[in-house]
């Protein structure tokens, strides 16, 4: 059979192919990605959208953990101070219960107790990043105002709503305890017990009863503090989990669309060799024909 005397088109198409392969390999190496447009690997490109979503959410959860952890430790340390203050109040109450005290001594003790009362009110009004953390979701107003007309000596302005924050896919934790549950629970009202103790010491009546109800309220409050301890433990373990997940997602993303450098480098160098060979073939082609020999 007669051969095609002009294979130039074939050679040029071949050159185009090898140059395309070299270009693809070069883009892959320079971007670090084997999938640079959806047609390179449609399934991987689609999965990468999901992977990107998970990775981004993972990052978001980690940020949320930092935020709520700050709030948890602020709340925990406020409650720690409250417990210390209440213990001091109980000690003072026990002193006040001693019968040998004079009226003026009791008045002094009562005054110190009043100081502790305002200290506890101020701790119950602790805010974190501008929000009062013991007011339920009524974060804009002071949760507790001093109010002498009330038997507990305070008014609660908050509500008893608890917020939840997602710290993982389908994993929500409660982020606050309302004051109505910690400080002014109906059976163990810290403020009522404290105010009763002040009155008891001032009037020297039923001091023992007041002390025992304050210690029971203080015990209840300590128990509530466990919530924050637990929450901080959850935060710590979820942080570890999310950091592991982050690595796994990065690995997954890399295996989906990342470039395998040795393979890409080999592809590049073989494509370049092909290109050179094709160029050499083109330059050799038509260098001579029979006319050259007919001199």
């Amino acid at each position: 059979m007669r051969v095609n005397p002009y294979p130039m088109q074939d050679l040029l198409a071949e050159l185009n192919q090898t140059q395309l392969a070299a270009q693809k390999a070069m883009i892959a190496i320079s971007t670090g990605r084997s999938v640079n447009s959806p047609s390179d690997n449609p399934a991987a490109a689609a999965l990468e959208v999901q992977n990107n979503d998970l990775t981004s959410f993972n990052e978001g959860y980690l940020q949320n953990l930092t935020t709520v952890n700050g709030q948890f430790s602020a709340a925990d340390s406020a409650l720690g101070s409250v417990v210390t203050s209440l213990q001091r109040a109980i000690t003072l109450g026990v002193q006040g219960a001693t019968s040998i005290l004079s009226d003026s001594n009791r008045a002094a003790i009562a005054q110190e107790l009043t100081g502790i009362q305002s200290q506890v009110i101020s701790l119950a009004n602790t805010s974190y990043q501008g929000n009062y953390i013991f007011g339920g979701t009524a974060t804009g107003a002071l949760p507790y105002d001093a109010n002498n007309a009330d038997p507990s000596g305070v008014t609660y302005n908050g509500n008893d709503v608890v917020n939840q924050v997602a710290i993982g896919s389908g994993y929500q934790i409660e982020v606050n305890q309302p004051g109505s549950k910690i400080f002014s629970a109906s059976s163990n009202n810290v403020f009522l017990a404290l105010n009763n103790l002040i009155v008891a010491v001032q009037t020297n009546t039923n001091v023992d009863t007041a002390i025992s109800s304050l210690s029971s309220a203080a015990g209840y409050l300590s128990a509530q503090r466990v919530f924050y301890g637990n929450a901080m433990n959850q935060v710590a373990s979820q942080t570890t989990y999310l950091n592991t997940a982050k690595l796994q997602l990065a690995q997954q993303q890399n295996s989906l669309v990342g470039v395998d450098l040795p393979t890409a480098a080999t592809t590049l160098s073989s494509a370049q060799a092909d290109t050179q060979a094709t160029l050499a073939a083109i330059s050799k082609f038509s260098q001579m024909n029979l006319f050259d020999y007919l001199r």
Partner: protein
Amino acid sequence: MSGLYGSLSIALSALASSQQALETTANNVANANTPGYSRQRSVLEPALPVNYGPLTFGTGVVISKIESLRDPILEIQLNQQTQHQSRLDTELQQLQQIQTGFGSASSGIGADITKFFNALQQLSPDPTNLALRQAVLTAAGNLATDFNLSATNLQTQGSNLNQSVTESIGEVNTLTAEIASVNQQISYLENVHQNASSLVDQQTSLIRKLSSLIDVQVIPTDQGISLTTSSGAPLVSGGQSFALSTDLASNGSERVMSGSQDITNTLTGGSLAGTIHIRDVQIPGMLGQLDQLAAGLSTALNTANHAGYDLSGNLGGNLFVAPPVGGVGAASGIRLAITDPTLLAASTDGTPGSNGNLATLSAVHDQGVVNGQTPLEYYSNTVFQVGSTASNTSADASAADQILRQLQDQRGSVSGVSLDEEAANMVQFQTAYQAAARVVSTVNALLSDAVNLGLGGTMQ
């Protein structure tokens, strides 16, 4: 038998034939690089013999014809493959343009959806924080902008294709007019028994050019050839061409008309068919998907925002301007309904610190908003579709290209000019010419001998 003069005439016929054959060779060499040229060959035949008694004497050589070497079946296959390849090439080019809008996982609509829901999550520990609320609105605004941008890009691409339909029709009409005129010249030459070979080459290349634009069927007739589209719309009949026209349809797309008949959807090959396929099928399909996603997502988020209370304790309103009923145009029209970050309904009970409704808004992330698919599932399916359509078309196009090149190789092996061959022919005819010239000089010597017979010496 005609004696020495007979020999002289035979030698002259050899001289003339060799000269003509050399001319053919020269013409082949001259056209070695002319696209569409088919090599020619001088066909030598012995001249009619004369009978003299029982003997038969040859009278030399004649060139009976100069033939062009071409394979008509191969030309038809080349036309068809050109139509196929040209359509796929056009489609691939356009699909690659479409897929750039869906190319990145870290930007574009998919990433915007992620960023929006992530911003909602970030707001949940601190729902009164205005900066974080603003971040949610900004993310929502970016999402809307990217929907608009993607839709606009697709629409622009569609209207560019519309323009290119009109241009292609113009080119088709120019080519069919040229082919008709070449047809006329061919039939004129053939009527007077002249060689129309180079015009046939021209006709073949024009039909090939036409094949890259539109599907063409070549029908041989008594008056030369007729061309129709594969569905039978006439393009050329002998020396007459039939111009196609375009007509602006109510939906703004240019229809291809043959006379009063709309042949837009019957075109199967050539770049025109590819352009129309992308314009009428791929782009509207993609826009429809974006519209559905934009409509489904914005409706679900609006419903969720209605369920809660804003920072001032009022019931929430629309987050996005409500999409049109049926969703058509949702992607290009989607935009934020609110600019005040306090209007984001984060609260379930009207207290500013409540974040309960943020969970409702966030839940849209995992909610079926289009055909039971979550926003990102739907979007990643779209990415998959765009990618696999482009990748399949790319595979088809390179296969079609391979076949086309093989056919071109075959055509080259039949019709291409080989310089080696022509050099060999040249040597052959040169030698034949030299030999015939030697015969002439020998006959000349003999004739002068005959003239000088009896003069006792050679003629001076």
